[in-house]
């Protein structure tokens, strides 16, 4: 990659790219900044940038009034639970498809992908009805299962593409040496597959955390995660910019941080391995 460019050109690139990058990031920056203002400062005209006294009172108010921790906890359980469950179901399947491929492997993979294409709204009522009849409406368990199912195709696909990169010869050698299937998985495959599994977990946790169709439609109070918590600000509290910002910052901060670690996996995971 030894493309030589003049310092001048590089400076120009840098300036332009930073300007665009900051512009795209600005709404997030502005939200975080506003969360430290008082309500009066938040709507001051002209807008105040950095010359204000930073305050944490919005965070305190949001915590106090809406029991933020409960929503956070719901998000953690729903996103975490659905991811863990999904990975447990997907690992054996992806393993089998990657190492014991048959003629039908490709068809099964594509079929799994096709279930991901099913528009949620097309099955909204049946799921809603099943939830009512099974007493799952507004329960974390129900959402864990639904989010696990909608992300399962992505989990299987990601794991499959990672597993396929593990050289098959190593497994052959282990089998020659008389390793049982259990040993093969435990001592050879798992250590080699850990990075891939970790990336898969990370991306799916993010996707589940941000999911906002089922989490809005299948929860009311008890199981409502952060997506619903924020939606409850749509009116009239949304007009209190500083509080809205504090609530928003708390909802997105954990994922922004995790997201930055998952940039590379994002491409592979969301294109089903078609772009790497």
């Amino acid at each position, binding site marked *: 990659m030894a493309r030589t460019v003049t310092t001048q050109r590089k400076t120009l690139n840098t300036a332009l790219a930073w300007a665009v990058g900051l512009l795209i990031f600005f709404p997030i920056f502005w939200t975080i900044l506003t969360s430290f203002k008082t309500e009066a400062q938040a709507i001051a005209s002209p807008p105040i940038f950095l010359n204000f006294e930073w305050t944490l009172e919005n965070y305190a108010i949001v915590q106090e009034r809406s029991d933020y921790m409960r929503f956070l906890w719901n998000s953690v359980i729903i996103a975490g639970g659905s991811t863990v469950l999904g990975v447990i179901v997907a690992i054996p399947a992806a393993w089998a498809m990657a190492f014991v491929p048959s003629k039908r492997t490709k068809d099964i993979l594509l079929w799994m992908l096709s*279930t991901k*294409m099913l528009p949620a709204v*097309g099955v909204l009522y049946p799921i809603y009805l099943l939830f009512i009849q099974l007493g799952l409406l507004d329960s974390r368990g129900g959402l864990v299962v639904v989010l696990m199912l909608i992300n399962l195709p992505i989990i299987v696909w990601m794991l499959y593409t990672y597993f396929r990169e593990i050289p098959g010869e190593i497994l052959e050698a282990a089998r020659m040496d008389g390793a049982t299937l259990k040993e093969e998985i435990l001592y050879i495959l798992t250590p080699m597959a850990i990075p891939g599994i970790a990336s898969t977990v990370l991306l799916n946790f993010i996707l589940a955390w941000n999911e906002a169709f089922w989490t809005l439609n299948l929860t009311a109070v008890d199981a409502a995660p952060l997506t619903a918590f924020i939606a409850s600000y749509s009116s009239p509290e949304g007009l209190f910019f500083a509080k809205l910002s504090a609530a928003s910052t708390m909802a997105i901060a954990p994922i922004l941080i995790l997201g930055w670690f998952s940039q590379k996996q994002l491409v592979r995971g969301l294109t089903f391995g078609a772009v790497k």
Partner: protein
Amino acid sequence: MATQHSRSVARLMMAPAVVLLLGWMLVPLTMTLYFSFKKYLPLRGGDLGWVGFDNYVRFVSSSSFWPAVQATLVIVGGVLVITVILGILLAMLLDQPMWGQGVVRILVIAPFFVMPTVSALVWKNMFMDPVNGLLAHLWRFFGAEPISWLSEASMTSIVMIVSWQWLPFATLILLTAIQSLDSEQLEAAEMDGAPVLKRFYHIILPHLGRAITIVILIQTIFLLSIFAEIFVTTGGAFGTRTLTYMIFQRVLESQNVGLGSAGGVYAIILANIVAIFLMRIVGKNLDA
């Protein structure tokens, strides 16, 4: 070198995932199909019997059907055009040598990680509010009359919000694709004195073709089912009621399940048409 034994073990290992997904697909789908042929009003009499294709006809002949189709097309089309064009430009920019490339990448990707309800609410209130929004301040600064974005320019606003969310995705995938381009080929063209535009049309764009197609297909599938962004901004008012939102309203708000289910079947058919093209590309990649 799979033995008969390992094959059956493999089948057993795949079984849970396959069974779960099969159930997830077939059960709700069958129910949606079943309801779509019924007059079914849970709050007003429940199951009122079979009505044949009545719901299908009524769904498309409703006065809000064509506006919903139009809203859907405008949002999907608008966001696709914006994110693909800006995504290509941005990916090419980010591919250039510069200082702090990693940080810029992070800045550009960040919106993708913001949950839809947050981005919709932040844009709606802090940017698009006609009195206190930042855009209103900006407009006033230039001596213009602030716009009530979400009522007067509702579609533009939604397209803006959704494009902001999806631009990172398009950029990231196109950037990955550009980086796999053989830089020697580009350098050779540069040496030969091919102008920038020619290099773009003859080398970069053809190379990006597949990535662009994938971006378009995947985004279309997600964009067709946009929900939270409309739910918290306009609630479907001001001409922003998409097909997805219309079905949601039929099913959960007015509890006309038969009618909503017929709409759901249309949505499934529509998504499948797009999905077929995507699967072809992904499938080809599997053989490679």
